[in-house]
């Protein structure tokens, strides 16, 4: 028996993540500064960790209810109301998931299948397209443009909608571009969607990391509330990536369906993480603010550094990434990243890892110490100067 032949075609059709190939290269090199890691460099604030430790000391080591502890869902509900003016009933409109990623997968499994289309604006987080493909649905890609600051425009959306469209994935603040959608930007999108039977999966995992103005959720438009599933979690805002905890909020019928997928595939999200997350929501606002202030400082240094090195860099207003244009180097994104890594020992990720329209761009994260960022930017400037000679 050949095991490889036993794997179903739909799984084989999905290529491995484009970021992975650098892993092997880096492992053999010393003194590499990685601006490739998509997670906070901060550790989880102490009070949150302590709550997790305390729950273990008490012997709180059992399964939680399938949709998550009601105390946590209560706090999620209060938090979304306090921060973004959203209201979800903790009893039947919120489900606690294993990271935001599980929510995306479960939602797509509940909403689409063969013959349905899922609109995915790219560049974007690498998991949306594979998760859509796994369901048998057809991903329809919108190529976002730098001249629109990588925001989704009503025109681009309208062109992508067909009779088969069932879901739009909206992910702002965006990974990898750092783009955001303001209230005004969303108004145009709402205008198109309000009379259509299209569900918006709004991945708002980076909502807290908004630097210019408060994040606005598309679910805050009354006409969109029922049609939107908000995905979020604790990884980015509270530096809790390893705890693997997220949540999804939306229409009770959709949450009920997702609960089915969740309870059979996962059972329930980790108990310790849920206990710690309650503390995060109750007493974490100050730490989030401190981290956001620090990211903002680094963001400005990073944008400035790339511009000084001669690369155009539109101003990202969210998440913790910059997405500079490297076309000036005459290299394609992959070559640029490979040479920058080999010659200057700085890892950035080719824009193409996040969609074909990412060609000509690279993603660099400022979730790294200021010291490393400055060192990396000096090396990038060196690299650029060598290119000019």
């Amino acid at each position, binding site marked *: 028996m050949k095991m490889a032949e036993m794997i179903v075609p739909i799984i084989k059709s999905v290529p491995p*993540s484009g*970021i992975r190939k650098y892993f092997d290269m880096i*492992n053999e090199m010393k003194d590499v500064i990685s601006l*490739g*890691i*998509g*997670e906070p460099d901060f550790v989880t604030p102490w009070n949150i960790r302590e709550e997790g430790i305390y729950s273990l000391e008490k012997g709180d080591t059992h399964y939680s209810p399938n949709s998550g502890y009601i105390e946590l869902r209560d706090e999620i509900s209060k938090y979304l109301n306090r921060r973004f003016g959203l209201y979800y009933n903790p009893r039947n409109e919120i489900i606690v998931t294993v990271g935001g990623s599980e929510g995306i997968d479960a939602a797509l499994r509940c909403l689409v299948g063969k013959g349905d289309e899922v609109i995915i604006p790219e560049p974007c*987080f690498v*998991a949306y397209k594979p998760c859509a493909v796994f369901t048998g649905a057809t991903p329809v890609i919108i190529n976002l443009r730098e001249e629109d600051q990588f925001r989704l425009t009503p025109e681009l959306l309208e062109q992508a909608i067909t009779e088969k469209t069932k879901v739009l994935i909206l992910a702002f603040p965006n990974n990898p571009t750092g783009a955001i959608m303001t209230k005004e930007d969303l108004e145009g999108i709402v205008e198109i969607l309000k009379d259509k039977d299209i569900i918006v999966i709004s991945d708002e995992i980076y909502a807290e990391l908004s630097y210019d103005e408060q994040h606005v959720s598309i679910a805050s438009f009354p006409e969109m509330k029922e049609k939107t599933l908000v995905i979020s979690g604790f990884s980015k805002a509270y530096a809790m990536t390893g705890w693997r905890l997220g949540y999804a909020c939306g229409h009770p019928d959709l949450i009920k369906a997702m609960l089915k997928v969740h309870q059979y595939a996962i059972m329930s999200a980790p108990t310790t993480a849920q206990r710690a997350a309650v503390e995060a929501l109750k007493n974490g606002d100050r730490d989030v603010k401190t981290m956001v202030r620090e990211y903002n400082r680094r963001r400005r240094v990073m944008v400035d550094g790339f511009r000084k090195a001669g690369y155009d860099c539109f101003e990202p207003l969210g998440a913790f990434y910059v997405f500079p244009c490297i076309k000036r180097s005459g290299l394609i994104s992959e070559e640029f990243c490979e040479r920058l890594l080999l010659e200057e020992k700085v890892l950035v990720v080719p824009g193409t890892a996040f969609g074909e329209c990412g060609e000509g761009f690279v993603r660099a994260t400022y979730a790294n*110490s200021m010291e490393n960022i400055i060192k990396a930017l000096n090396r990038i400037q060196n690299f650029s100067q060598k290119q000019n000679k």
Partner: protein
Amino acid sequence: MSGGFDLTVMLDGKSLKEVASFVAEKLAPLDAVLSTATHFVLKKYKDNGTIFEKDDTDTREVVIL
């Protein structure tokens, strides 16, 4: 000296046994010593009020997705 004891003796020993022997054989037999309490330093976080720097190695995975 106020509090529950009069003298603090700090000593370095190679093993628990070495410290225990010193207390049992040299300190405790002294006439003036009524009782002893031994505390071991397991890990030093501060010296004279200065916090030792934590190891700042980046333990994040280089590549996740």
